[in-house]
């Protein structure tokens, strides 16, 4: 794929990924066929900041974990009322990283399938 298109994609979507993952993503996209770009652009990434706000407001009910797709952990958090409050506190500091990790997994799934 053209490097200008890849750079444009990274500029608009860099906030969804860990900064140390960006060089690897760029490399993968450069080796990708032009026709697969539409699959990449159709992926709906989760915004880490939005998830952090949800975690602050409804973290004790596990809504943040449900939103990023960790249903099992979400149910666990819901049933334990945010791990008696401790898990909710820890998740305030973990959830942005977890969201970026999930976005990376989502991108990798599409790259593997295409």
């Amino acid at each position, binding site marked *: 794929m053209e490097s200008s298109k890849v750079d444009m994609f990274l500029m608009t979507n860099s906030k969804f990924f860990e*900064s140390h993952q960006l060089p690897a993503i760029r490399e993968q996209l450069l080796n990708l066929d032009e026709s697969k770009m539409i699959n990449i652009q159709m992926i709906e990434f989760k915004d880490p900041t939005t998830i952090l706000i949800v975690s602050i407001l409804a973290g004790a009910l596990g809504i943040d974990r449900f939103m990023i797709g960790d249903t099992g952990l979400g149910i666990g958090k819901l049933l334990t009322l945010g791990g008696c409050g*401790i898990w909710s*506190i*820890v998740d305030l*500091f*973990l959830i942005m*990283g977890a969201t970026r990790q999930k976005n990376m997994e989502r991108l990798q799934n599409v790259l593997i399938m295409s």
Partner: protein
Amino acid sequence: MKNDLHIPSTEHEREYASNGYIMSLVAVMAGLPIPVVNLIASLIFFLANRKATYFVRWHSTQALLSQLSVVGFNSAAFWWTISIFFFHEKEVNNDYMAYVIAVIVLNVLELIGTMIAAVRVRKGIHYRIFIIGEFTDIFVKESN
């Protein structure tokens, strides 16, 4: 003493590593009378980051070990206090006062160390807490 001031780290890695220390401070405030809340919080943070990059793993382990270093003393002080004021099994004596003052000093030192670590790590400096940094080297290996 090994002094790795320049472990390469990205902005996000610094943020996560620093979050480990900040979180343990927040957990101290949230669960203040109970001495193990901050330890449990640090343990969850450590487990969540066990597959992260070396920089993040190292600092989440150091945060956990710094909590572990005080939890034994805190628990003893907590139960000694409970036995005096709730069960009236013992009474306040010089030994108790000396121990409580020592525990408070230890906790303040640990708190200051954690705060300095949070600030320095956020700037990308590979900060090692006195003695605990040496133990962290034993537990954390560079390869994942």
